[in-house]
């Protein structure tokens, strides 16, 4: 099988602002057609800058971006007409009606009027009842939906959602995930930024972590979940050990530096965790412990560790 051409291809992309601040450093990233890609990172990591460059709002300092094979600078018409953007800030017109603003967006992106399509989007986003309301009369959550509707008005193949659920209540967040999933079923590629780990876990096929303007990890979510599936059992010993006894070597135990703790790592998704056997062997070896605890590493923890290692 021939590998499919990535729908977005970022090469050696850098952005240095006039102030000298280097927001992105040599970013390389390929997004596959039809996937949901979550870009994770702390505030100020460069997520929004990266999206803004791809969408044409910020000029890159160096490097190139191809959207569906079209250079975003040279071929900006072809590139941009394929992209929809929902920015982080709730920036909408106030006095326009929902219908007018969504229809406007479609025209702006060069598509002839298509009331049936606009109607479908508004219905999918539960905005149909509000189509004649002025935007300023809508709640924050509704405004967020309007922005998504605007971004979808021109039938983009690529959708950027910059912090789509920031400041959104739980119900709307679930609705939003539903919308994103159904979009993916129609073949739309979705790139979302978030600092909610849960969101990435729920939605993404792949996860990228960005920190201080650098991509420090790109991984399949399944891979990450596998790491997530690991648990650690920590045994606090009554007597310190110099080394792991030979009869316990088959369990792959680790001894803490001070010798007071034994750490056992296991996979909760495996058929057998090996805990029963371990406890029996410990008993047989005469090792007694004061206390025990188990701990599951979260994506958040992996993420925090990754980010802090770079500081």
């Amino acid at each position: 099988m021939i590998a499919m051409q990535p729908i977005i291809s970022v090469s050696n992309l850098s952005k240095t602002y006039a102030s000298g601040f280097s927001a992105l450093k040599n970013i390389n990233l390929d997004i596959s057609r039809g996937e949901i890609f979550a870009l994770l990172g702390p505030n100020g990591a460069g997520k929004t800058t990266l999206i803004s460059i791809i969408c044409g709002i910020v000029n890159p300092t160096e490097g190139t971006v191809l959207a569906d094979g079209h250079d975003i600078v040279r071929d900006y018409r072809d590139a941009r007409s394929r992209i929809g953007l929902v920015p982080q800030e709730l920036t909408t017109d106030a006095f326009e009606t929902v219908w007018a603003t969504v229809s406007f967006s479609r025209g702006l992106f060069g598509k002839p009027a298509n009331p049936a399509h606009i109607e479908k989007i508004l219905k999918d986003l539960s905005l149909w009842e509000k189509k004649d309301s002025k935007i300023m009369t809508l709640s924050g959550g509704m405004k967020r939906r309007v922005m998504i509707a605007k971004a979808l008005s021109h039938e983009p193949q690529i959708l950027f959602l910059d912090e789509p659920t920031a400041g959104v209540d739980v119900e709307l967040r679930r609705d939003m995930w539903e919308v994103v999933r159904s979009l993916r079923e129609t073949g739309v590629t979705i790139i979302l930024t978030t600092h909610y780990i849960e969101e990435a876990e729920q939605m993404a096929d792949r996860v990228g972590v960005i920190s201080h303007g650098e991509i420090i990890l790109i991984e399949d979510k399944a891979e990450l979940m596998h790491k997530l599936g690991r648990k650690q059992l920590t045994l606090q010993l009554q007597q310190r050990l110099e080394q792991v006894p030979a009869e316990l070597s088959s369990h792959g135990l680790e001894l803490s530096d001070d010798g007071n703790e034994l750490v056992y790592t296991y996979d909760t998704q495996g058929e057998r965790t090996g805990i029963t056997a371990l406890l029996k062997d410990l008993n047989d070896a005469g090792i007694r412990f004061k206390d025990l605890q188990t701990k599951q590493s979260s994506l958040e923890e992996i993420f925090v560790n990754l980010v802090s290692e770079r500081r």
Partner: protein
Amino acid sequence: MNYHAIRAIYLFEMARTWRTLLQSIVSPVISTSLYFVVFGAAIGSRISEINGISYGAFIVPGLIMLSLLTQSISNASFGIYFPKFVGTIYELLSAPVSYLEIVISYVGAAASKSIILGLIILATASLFVPLQIQHPGWMLLFLVLTAVTFSLFGFIIGIWAGNFEQLQLVPMLIVTPLTFLGGSFYSIDMLPPLWRTVSLFNPVVYLVSGFRWSFFGVSDVNVGISLGMTLAFLAACLIAVWWIFRTGWRIKA
């Protein structure tokens, strides 16, 4: 050309005009009518004719120019400044539209609005004073050229302005004084020679003079020079806009 986009922006901007009808059209008409009452009827009756034209009729072209300039600038500057201010400009920047298309649609809408306004003021004026237009073709040419040129100028101000104060600054401190001193209410021939020479550095003099010539066939400066100066200012604005978009100045990071 992305005609759908031009149409969308143009209609969006015109919708703003209709939505704010009172402010956009009615209030300039009222204030212009007040000028007529004060300068035309009340004071004007005591002022002798200028070049054989009654004072009331003489000020009509000047008044239309005054509205045309201020409205073109404020429409166009607000039209582009507001999306910048509230942040909706993201959509414009991420859309597959060229800079030319952005300028055509925004400036076109602002100019359309001021041309409509100019014609309404003209109609209003004809209720107060008997008017004749000797060169209707030239009249329309000056009307359109001025509306387009100053809409472009307003567009530049809208992009330059970092806050609402700056948005008002140029119209208030530069354009209004230049218009009042540009022969809207008098012929520059009435000035002492020194001030007459100074007036010739005021670009508005040429606009008013040319526009007045199209009504009455008399002017302060030759109509060809008026047209030339207007076109020169238009060219200067076009170059400035071209440079702004080329560099992304004040729009893109």
